[in-house]
């Protein structure tokens, strides 16, 4: 089951650039939230702040409070611990090229020292099934390398890899933007199924995708979250004029 995320007064910088300005939002548990907005307005930065990946960049900085399941992830926990409870799927599929499909999916566990083979086998199978990839790769799990699959399959494998560690939150940064339409729709179906079990935050450029998949949507513009509301409201009756302009395609 997922947890809710409370964000209060989140600010983020890359060097001198103030990329996120005073974000305040509550993302509900077990729901999918979409983040939309033009390129470079801070959506990815925001998502990366949710699992402290923002910090991996030496010139990056963040202040504010982000609470997951009641825990302040900046004050009360180490980044590594947070990232074990929050899964992340990136824009481009990034399988580990030296590992087989099995090892890729199990990597979150194996690289953290988990050894129980039986549980690993079950987990890999379960995750691949959740990612709707099981049928396609079940015979080649240990034979094929993770990098030998097609783009769409790779991304689904990355989703399986993220799911294997049984996270409570799933962050997805434009997961389907590098994929063909068939793969994209498969992934959207996936997200639709998964949101009952996890809290999902999905960044997307594709407004139709947001509409299809998420219950809530946040609109980012120039580092600020201009509006956050149910998807239905955002797309039919947005409060802010800028949101409306974006939705109707006047810019971005």
């Amino acid at each position, binding site marked *: *089951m*997922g*947890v*809710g*995320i*409370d964000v209060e007064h989140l600010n983020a910088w890359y060097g001198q650039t103030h990329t996120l300005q005073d974000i305040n939002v*509550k*993302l*509900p*548990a*077990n*729901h999918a939230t979409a983040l939309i907005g033009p390129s470079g307005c801070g959506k990815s930065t925001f998502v990366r702040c949710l699992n402290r990946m923002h910090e991996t960049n030496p010139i990056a900085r963040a202040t504010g409070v982000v609470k997951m*399941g*009641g825990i302040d992830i900046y004050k009360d926990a*180490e*980044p*590594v*611990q947070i990232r*074990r*409870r929050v899964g992340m799927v990136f824009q481009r599929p990034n399988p580990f090229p030296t590992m087989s499909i099995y090892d890729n999916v199990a990597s979150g*566990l194996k690289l*953290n*020292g*988990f050894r129980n083979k039986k*549980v690993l086998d079950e*987990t890999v199978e379960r995750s691949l099934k959740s990612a709707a990839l099981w049928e396609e790769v079940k015979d080649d799990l240990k034979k094929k390398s993770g990098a030998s699959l097609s783009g769409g399959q790779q991304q689904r494998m990355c989703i399986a890899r993220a799911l*294997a*560690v*049984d996270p*409570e939150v799933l962050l997805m940064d434009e997961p389907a933007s590098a994929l063909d339409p068939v793969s994209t*729709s498969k992934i*959207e179906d996936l997200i*639709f199924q998964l949101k009952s079990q996890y809290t999902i935050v999905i960044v997307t450029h594709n*407004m*139709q995708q947001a*509409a*299809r*998949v998420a*219950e*809530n949507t946040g609109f980012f513009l120039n580092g600020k979250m201009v509006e*956050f*509301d*149910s*998807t*239905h*409201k955002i*797309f*039919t009756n947005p409060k802010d004029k800028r949101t*409306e302009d974006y*939705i*109707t*395609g006047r810019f971005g």
Partner: protein
Amino acid sequence: MTTEEDPKPTLRPVLVAAPPHDPGTTPTDSITAPVSTIRRYLMSRRSGAVADRIFMGAMLTCALIIFAIVIFIVWTLVIRSKLSLHQFGFRFFLHSAWDPVNGDFGALPFMYGTIVTSLLALVMAVPLAMGVAIFLTELCPRRLRTPISFLTELLAAIPSVVYGLWAVFVLVPIMRDQLGPWLYKYFGWTHLFEGYNFGVGLLTASIILAIMILPIISSITRDIMLAVPTSQREGVLALGATRWEMIRTGVLRNARIGIVGAIILGLGRALGETMAVTMVIGNHPDIGTSLFAPGNTLASVIANEFSEATGDMYLSALVEIGLALFLVTIVVNAIARGLVWAVTRGTPARAH
């Protein structure tokens, strides 16, 4: 799945499975399902922050060892040459004597030998290296390119002692019996080819040195020529240049600085080359005007005499020569690398 509706301001989401959620209510804060084995396992693992720091410390230490090595080398060279530095000062390098028995040391003959052999080697190697580089980058048919560049890499991989061995048994007889007399006959007027010719000497050493530094000059020149953008070449060709004119103005002119760097790098290599030179230079601590004369270089005198040096002053003098060699090669190499870097700007270099 979804149909792209429309240009109108209202966009209807076609698929809305859950009822619109009111963000005003408090979201669930806690986990409502039993925690799985995996989650429990992962939550129990330590964050590895300590291990991270230890790991980084270990890597950093090893990186610092590189500093330690250089500092140690400088320190030990200075300390162990103190005796000689004190006794002779800088006159050491302007003084021409090498008398271990009486304790009189002067490194001028070795300076002379090093400079003459290195410069002569450059004079011989640079044109050839340029020719090879031009051939490989501009003229060579594609299929021949790999084998020939592979061969030049092999040249670079041959150990110095093997070059020396070949030089002793092949080059020296040629010099003594064929090349030497020929040079004396046609170029004796330059007074560079006087005296007895036993086959060993400055000229032979220069030749083998030239063969040894050729691959590195050629290889770096090639890298630099390849770094010149094709647009430069095409621009010149479009003006109606012949291929040589294109190479001269489109490539070499741009690569001038880097090529100078390559040459200086070759010089640096020549200065430090020890074994092959030692085997064919004749090992005579004297300055001879003839190119046939035996001599010595800074590196070869150390190679020859270090393990048998008796007496602290003797050893100290040799170490001082080592110190000089060290400083000179560092400066030369630093200049060379600076020039090469300025041109290639960090484009990945092939391993040479």
